């Protein structure tokens, strides 16, 4: 029987009722009395020198309160970058300033030139059209390799060139890897593109800045995955507001997928302008603005080489990647192609020698940063594509080649500096073969061929590093923040509980799943426990939600705080029952004395804590509230095996996903329903990347895919029902819940499965195609078939 409450139960989500009845509280639903509206005038050229921005006429327009330009931000801090990468020569990366409003130059389409603040949004928009500006358009750099050539236009005049860093990992392995590849029995080489994507949470970004002059307090309502991080970055580095005078609230947030981690100029602008004008200032992004101002994702160009011995054992791996940073360094951008990518290049395989080179490049495009998976999808795609290509070159079964090279003993220290604690890659592959009915594929291919279609099967594995991250380790790697998480468990007098967590829920269901954990530990009903999140004034300092870290790190902090609660409650119970503390047991919400029939209920103990008439005041304080900060000792390593079956219409090149199966090992699972939902969503995003989505710039830096008319989002009829399984469980050994994280797996594991399937389909039709770049759109597939 499945459990109906506590850990392991598919408890229905309590947050759903407000979302289903239109009573959610998203940032754009917040209107502060007396608020003004801002409209940003954005650059329509990719690169240009600003000669003049004349706001005189606009300032006289009806309803306009003030027009701001870059000059108003002289002396205000730069939008900071949160990670400093050191290159392979020991030099720190080139790090340009990022002003709130453009100063001197515009560097990408969408770079804000001026901001009009007015009584209504339409007045602000009308007035923006009256701003007179004179910008000399300069040649733009869009292609990364072109950007690195001598004499290429510089995105930032004060930097040496457009190279942010040239990173080597592990640099000491470089020569050994070169030698192993030279001496290998077989080398498979693949050049590929990991296409630029736009995260596109359905809720566009919004910021509302408010200021109370009487007590000098600023409040920012914002669509963020991590309000404390925004408070830290904006308060300390941009505006110089101390934490106790700055409150950041991220209420209901309509999806994040990484792009709402970062601190954005619009947040700083609204906070700054509200202080200048002593009135609230609101900005709501349009979708078109989102395409040119939300940080993009992926955008790697890679050459990968896999060396094998005569028995098809992997002997070495070398990969060279160009990673697009865009025009400025977004909050975590430098970490994505390096530490979140290079450290995953071992994948599920015992390849002994690995070398990763990454050149990060500035271009005249929107900044690029973490998008669901962040570095790990890029690692997985290239590795699983090159392994598949190797199998086809060698004429061996792609699944068998993978199985032969699987890591099978744990813990396992990879040659790229991480230690996998647990996993069972054979088990997940076995499970995948079962749920995907790999054995039945040949018959299904025949059916497709009878209809004049080609059918392909693609299989791959993945591993990821989640639960970001041990603070002392990431500090050595260049992080400018700690990556612990926090929780306060506040037990009220009558026994109900509020858990204040530093994690943030923007679709993941924390309000349901987190109480399941505390309820299990205390043996009280889930509905006695509420979660508080998303407000720096109501929660302890926390780092927020990304990198599949909420349960592994935030959940662990909550467990530690709850353990402190239990310890104190047992002391109180021992006093009430006049028994030794060591004999007190807690089960089903009752404290008992071992070996006796004495008991007191949870509520009696909590009441005693707040009405301490009969209470050991000489030994312990009254009250029952505990806080814990949890810093993980390692990453967690979810893994799995995915299979995709596509049908390909040779007349049109159209690919349809007919079946998609995922077998994941997420460690222990709190709410299986929520976990399945996370995988479903990730798969759709991966299928979208593989077949549909593409963020396209022309050679002048014009963004050609800036709306849903041009950027192909996956829709309901682009995907099938999925088959997902997470019954293979190897618990994480180093966090108290044994959990690994599940938020990004679907998006990491699915793109190579789709492309492997497309290549398989094409080859089954006799086409000599060994690779096709994402998205495998009908035109690309047709071109691949027809030369």
């Amino acid at each position, binding site marked *: 029987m499945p459990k109906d409450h506590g850990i392991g139960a598919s408890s229905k989500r309590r947050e759903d009722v407000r979302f289903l009845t239109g009573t959610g509280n998203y940032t754009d639903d917040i209107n502060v009395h007396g608020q003004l509206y801002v409209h940003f005038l954005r650059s329509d050229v990719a690169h240009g020198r600003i000669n003049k921005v004349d706001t005189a006429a606009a300032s006289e327009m009806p309803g306009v309160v003030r027009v701001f330009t870059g000059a108003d931000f002289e002396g205000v801090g730069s939008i900071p970058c949160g990670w400093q990468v050191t290159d392979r020569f020991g030099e720190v990366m080139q790090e340009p300033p990022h002003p709130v409003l453009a100063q001197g130059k515009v560097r990408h389409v969408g770079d804000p030139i001026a901001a009009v603040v007015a009584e209504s949004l339409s007045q602000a928009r009308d007035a923006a059209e009256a701003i007179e500006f004179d910008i000399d358009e300069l040649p733009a750099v869009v292609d990364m390799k072109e950007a690195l050539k001598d004499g290429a236009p510089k995105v930032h005049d004060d930097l040496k060139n457009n190279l942010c860093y040239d990173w080597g990992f592990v640099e000491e392995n470089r020569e050994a890897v070169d030698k192993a590849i030279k001496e290998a029995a077989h080398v498979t080489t693949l050049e590929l593109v990991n296409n630029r994507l736009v995260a596109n949470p*359905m809720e566009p970004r919004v910021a509302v800045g408010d200021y109370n002059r009487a007590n000098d307090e600023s409040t920012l309502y914002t669509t963020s995955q991590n309000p404390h991080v925004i408070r830290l970055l904006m308060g300390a580095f941009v505006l110089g507001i101390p934490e106790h005078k700055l409150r950041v609230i991220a209420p209901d947030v309509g999806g994040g997928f990484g792009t709402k981690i970062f601190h954005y100029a619009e947040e700083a602008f609204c906070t700054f302008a509200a202080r200048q004008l002593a009135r609230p200032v609101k900005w709501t992004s349009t979708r078109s603005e989102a395409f040119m101002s939300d940080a993009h994702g992926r955008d790697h160009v890679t050459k990968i080489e896999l060396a094998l011995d005569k028995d098809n054992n992997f002997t070495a791996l070398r990969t060279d990647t160009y990673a697009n940073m865009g025009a400025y360094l977004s909050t975590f951008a430098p970490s994505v192609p390096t530490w979140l990518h290079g450290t995953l290049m071992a994948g599920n395989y015992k390849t002994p020698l690995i070398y990763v080179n990454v050149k990060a490049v500035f271009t005249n495009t929107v900044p690029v940063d973490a998008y669901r998976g962040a570095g790990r999808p890029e690692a997985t795609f290239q590795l699983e594509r090159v392994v598949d290509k190797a199998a086809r070159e060698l004429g061996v079964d792609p699944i068998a080649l993978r199985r032969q090279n699987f890591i099978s003993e744990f813990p396992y220290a990879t040659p790229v500096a991480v230690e996998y604690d647990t996993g069972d890659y054979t088990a997940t592959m076995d499970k995948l073969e079962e749920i995907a009915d790999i054995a039945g594929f040949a018959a299904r291919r025949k059916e497709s061929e009878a209809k004049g279609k080609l059918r392909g099967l693609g299989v791959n594995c993945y591993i990821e590093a989640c639960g970001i991250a041990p603070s002392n380790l990431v500090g050595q790697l260049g992080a400018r923040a700690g990556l612990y998480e926090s929780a306060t468990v506040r037990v009220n007098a009558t026994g109900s509980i509020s858990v204040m967590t530093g994690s943030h829920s*923007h679709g993941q269901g924390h309000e349901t799943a987190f109480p399941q954990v505390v309820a299990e530990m205390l043996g009280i009903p889930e509905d006695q426990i509420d979660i508080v999140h998303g407000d720096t004034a109501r929660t302890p300092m926390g780092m927020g939600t990304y990198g599949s870290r909420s349960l592994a790190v935030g959940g662990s902090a909550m467990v530690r705080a709850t353990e402190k609660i239990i310890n104190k409650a047992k002391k109180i119970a021992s006093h009430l029952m006049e028994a030794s503390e060591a004999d007190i047991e807690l089960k089903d919400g009752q404290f008992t004395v071992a070996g006796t029939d004495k008991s007191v209920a949870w509520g009696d103990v909590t009441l005693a804590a707040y009405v301490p008439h009969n209470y050991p005041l000489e030994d312990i304080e009254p009250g029952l509230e505990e806080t814990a900060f949890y810093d993980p000792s390692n990453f967690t390593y979810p893994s799995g095996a995915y299979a995709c079956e596509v049908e390909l219409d040779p007349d049109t090149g159209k690919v349809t996903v007919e079946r998609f199966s995922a077998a994941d090992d997420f460690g222990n699972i709190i709410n299986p329903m929520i976990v399945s939902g996370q995988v479903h*969503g990730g798969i759709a995003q991966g299928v979208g990347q593989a077949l549909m989505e593409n963020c396209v710039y022309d050679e002048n830096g014009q963004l050609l895919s800036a709306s849903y008319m041009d950027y192909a989002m996956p829709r309901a009829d682009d995907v099938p*029902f999925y088959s997902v399984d997470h019954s293979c469980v190897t618990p994480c050994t180093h966090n108290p819940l044994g959990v690994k994280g599940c938020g990004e797996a679907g998006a990491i594991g699915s793109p190579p499965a789709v492309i492997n399937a497309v290549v398989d389909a094409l080859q089954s039709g006799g086409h000599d195609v060994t690779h096709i770049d994402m998205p495998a759109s009908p035109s690309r597939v047709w071109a691949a078939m027809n030369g």
Partner: protein
Amino acid sequence: MAKVEMTVNGKTVSGEVEGRTLLSDFIRGGLQLTGTHVGCDTSQCGACVVHVNGQAVKSCTMFAAEAEGAEVTTIEGIGGNDGSLSTVQQAFQDYHGLQCGFCTPGMVMSATALLKDNPKPTEAEIREYLEGNICRCTGYHNIVKAIMAASGQDVGAIAAE
């Protein structure tokens, strides 16, 4: 500015609007019914779907003035007066058909309109009908499943977990 009057969720409402005011802006800003969401500016995402005279309509594609005299139902008016959930709303909760909740009002309004016209839609019919509603969280799996369940179909056999 012109006066517009319509019936929204059974109540007569009125307001002053500009000619360019969209119905979605009037519902959100004028009436403070913030359950209707705006997720794009090209009438693609469907987060703003409401019912106008019984038809599912993207409220960003209509001017408020065009709804003069119309019967409008928004997500706030689709459940029972006692706060109970409609069959479709309940199925979305039961089958985890939502995550961040932003597309959800539009999804529920579209699904409700679909089931009115087609009480037992096939999976393919549901997927085609939802072409105009984008969800970034669920991968659509549990949305389609919820709508099939709301129409009384046995989803246990159809949609593998």
